[in-house]
């Protein structure tokens, strides 16, 4: 059974943006990881993960972001994660020091701008 999470993918100026919506936990983390990994090809410059719509994220979700970061780094691809400043999900990512590995932005617009600047 799949918990209530949706993965929506869009392209902004050639950069894929994966927007997650709902709750991410043990029940669906593996499924979400698979779906995101599938869209990360060598032809893209990087990936923006939009967690604005995530209402809950547990340590499996944290694990998922760290694994994603590691994979993209190995392939020399850029990776940024976006969520509002006041988001409770951000608190979890800060507590688990994800920000030391992946830059956390406050919006997708900011992520895309910073990713383009770095190119």
């Amino acid at each position: 059974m799949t918990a209530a999470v949706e993965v929506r993918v869009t392209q902004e100026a050639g950069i894929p943006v994966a927007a997650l919506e709902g709750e991410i936990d043990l029940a669906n983390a593996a499924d979400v990881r698979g779906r995101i990994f599938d869209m990360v090809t060598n032809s893209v410059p990087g990936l923006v993960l939009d967690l604005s719509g995530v209402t809950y994220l547990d340590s499996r979700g944290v694990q998922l972001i760290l694994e994603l970061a590691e994979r993209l780094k190995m392939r020399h691809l850029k990776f940024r994660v976006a969520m509002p400043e006041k988001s409770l999900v951000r608190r979890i990512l800060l507590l688990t020091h994800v920000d030391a590995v992946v830059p956390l932005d406050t919006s997708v617009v900011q992520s895309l701008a910073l990713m383009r600047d770095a190119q």
Partner: protein
Amino acid sequence: MTPRVLVVDDDPALLEALPETIRLRMRGTAVETCASAAPALQQIADVDYDAIVSDIKMPGMDGLALLAQVRTLRPDTPVLLITGHGEHDLAIRSLRAGAYDYVQKPIDRDYFVASLGRAVQVRQLRRQIAEQQLALARHAGRLEETVQARTTELRRTIEQLRALTDVAAAIHGARGVDEVLHSVVDAACRLSGAELAVAGFYRGEGQAAMAMGEHWQTALAPERATAQVPVDTLAGVFAAICAGDRSPAQIPESVFAPLAPAAQNGGAASSFLALPIRGRDRQPLGAMILARPGGHAFTPEARVQIEALALQAAVALENTRLYERARGTAETLQRSLLPERLPEIPGVALSARYLPGNHEAVGGDWYDVLTLPNGQIGLVIGDVAGRGVLAAAIMGQLRNALRAYALEGNAPVTIAEQLARLVDERTMATLLYLIVDPETQTVRYLNLGHLPPLVLGPGGQVTRLDGGAPPLGVRGVAYREHTASLPAHSTILVYTDGLLEDRGRSIDEGLARLTDALVRYGEAPVDDLVDGVLASALDGRAAEDDVALVAVRLAPLNPDRLVMRLPAVPSSLAQMRQTLRRWLVVAGITAEDAYDITTAINEACANAIEHAYGPTDGTFECELSFVDGLLTATIRDIGRWRSARGQYRGHGLKLMEALMGKVEVISGPAGTAVQMRKSPARQGVRV
């Protein structure tokens, strides 16, 4: 037989001589004498003489007068008259008057003896003929009686045959073993004059277990006898009757000893008649015992009738058994599709009932309760038109498809559209799908031709959740879901039409009754509520159609304590968080603290689920208390041993420690317990 002759004469010389002659010449003849006619008549009235000899000329009544009297008194007795010499006229007159002969004086003894001898002989022959005629008449009479008796017998046989036919009709019209047995015992009493009859159907395997009461289904007539004959006693007697291949007459009287007290009914000893009921393969299906108190034995006709009855009973029981097996298949199929147990969700009381109707085939009613991926509760009830294995099979398809779509997290409208594609035009099925969200206290629902859900509010008012679409099987329908709010303490009742069906009552009347019952049992625990609603809706009648009903109540959570016991599967996490968030709100904990607590507890639960992972599903328990501002959470995986592999090295433990401060992990042989404490900020209790 000794001939008796009476001689009447006023002449003493003749009165002496004639008897002398008769005695000498007609040996063995008894002679009596009389000196005048009047006393002679007296004697003739008393004695039936074989012949009378009388002089004509006598003082007083003469011989002719005497003859006339004798002719009326004893018309068959020959009379010989004695006339004077040459008195021919008198002789002729006497013959005309009916004398057998006349003898002239002086008496020719040879002639006299010959004539008297003939008279006696004729008289005796006549008497013989009369006797033979009488015998013949008697014989004819007896013959007549025999014919009449045979006719009566034949008529009775026809009546008995007719009675047996009526009985056969009753037995074969009976539904179920119980009805068959009852019609058998009733018929047995009517056919045989028995005052007590008991029939039993053996449900066990093999003859070894026959003496055990648990394997017998019995019926007694009259009903009052039931209390007097325990079924264990009966089983022993039945087993003895079925033992071997004895005829009823070969069953020893001692077998019935245990039944004697029940059969006695006031004194005189009872006659018993017992026989096994054997099926086509001669294997005993059951047995019957009849008793007649008061020393009345069973007639041979009754025995024949009862044997015929046993044959009818055997056919009916075999058919019933076959039918029960077929029905059992459909019932098992249907039962296997109903939830074995309802999910346990703190603060959500659930109760469901399913009552098979007394219809010959099972219906297609079903219900289902699901914990959805987001922790909300999916409630399903439906009814496939038609009955039997086919309806049960369609119901199974719908139920499984709905489960799959619902557990994928699909919206009600999407689910309905998918199901509509499964059902062809020949199938008609009603369906009600509700999503109850205890956290937001709302319900989303979609009604496809089903009876409306009823909601009993906390104030005791009942509202109908209206709005819906045609049943599944109707093409081209645009589905639309509806929403309603569910205040705390609300109870939702969903049900199938079997609950309302009652000939002579409209659905509105049925709904009004149901509403009344719902209000009446509104304060009761949900288990009592569904029982109460079921009882008052059926009002003593057996449910004609299948009945399914489910009640869901949003019960208040205790702000001091929360205990959740959940299956150790990843999908339990969402439900755990749902309930936990509800409780944290009730406990008055701020949103930010609530998020931290939820995340920490979720980590501990996720670990418990991973540890409990194994070939069979385990459970885990999450217990929280909030006393004097201190929140304590304990998460245990129950009944499972695990080796300490250091699973808490990852982010989980880090998160728990960061969010809660102190985390204790206690490993024991029965499982692992994780305990966390925190003093969260409160924002004032909200219920």
